[in-house]
């Protein structure tokens, strides 16, 4: 079963506008969430993370929001730039596990048009 879901396979936005990428999870034991960005032929690159004790974390143009009651998180990119075009993965870590293994969603391909 897919414990982390990204229901939008793709998203297209205009340069300068906001990009909102969504992620839902089912396991209430997840206590740490991350977003990774991936360009073709490269490995995923860490973007931003959030602990379950917070509801928002901001880093420059990137903000992650966490709604624990809805088991939902989102990544906001403002303003979007053409270089942001990539596949974005949401990932989670199970707090009851003593490993850092990441449970990934399927990914959302973001295209930012100039």
């Amino acid at each position, binding site marked *: 079963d897919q414990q982390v879901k990204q229901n939008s396979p793709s998203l297209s936005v205009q340069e300068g506008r906001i990009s909102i990428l969504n992620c839902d999870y089912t396991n209430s034991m997840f206590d740490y969430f991350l977003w990774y960005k991936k360009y073709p032929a490269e*490995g995923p690159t*860490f973007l931003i993370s959030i602990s379950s004790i917070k509801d928002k974390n901001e880093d420059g143009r990137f903000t992650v929001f966490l709604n624990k009651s809805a088991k939902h998180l989102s990544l906001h990119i403002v303003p979007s730039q053409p270089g942001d075009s990539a596949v974005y993965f949401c*990932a989670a870590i199970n707090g009851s*596990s003593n490993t*850092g293994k990441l449970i990934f969603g399927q990914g959302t391909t973001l295209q930012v048009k100039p």
Partner: protein
Amino acid sequence: GAGVSQTPSNKVTEKGKYVELRCDPISGHTALYWYRQSLGQGPEFLIYFQGTGAADDSGLPNDRFFAVRPEGSVSTLKIQRTERGDSAVYLCASSPGYTRDTQYFGPGTRLTVL
């Protein structure tokens, strides 16, 4: 400094053959992870090393898959009697050691089983 490197970048083999995939983590990183990414999916956890020992191998799909990290640095993922369903990108990541530390990914090895 140097990032995570993986060799080979591409591997084509025939069904039933044995393959080895290598990962060189970032120097000093004690935690090492292997993931597998199939087309259109997010990375899927395979195995986690803390130092030389496999602390969590719950993601290995069956006993054809095995991984080692004999000196706590380089790791090798070994696949016996390859099957067409093993075709995927195999990603390696390393982190300083704590479970919430950022994982840094290599570019991956694309394995194709004919």
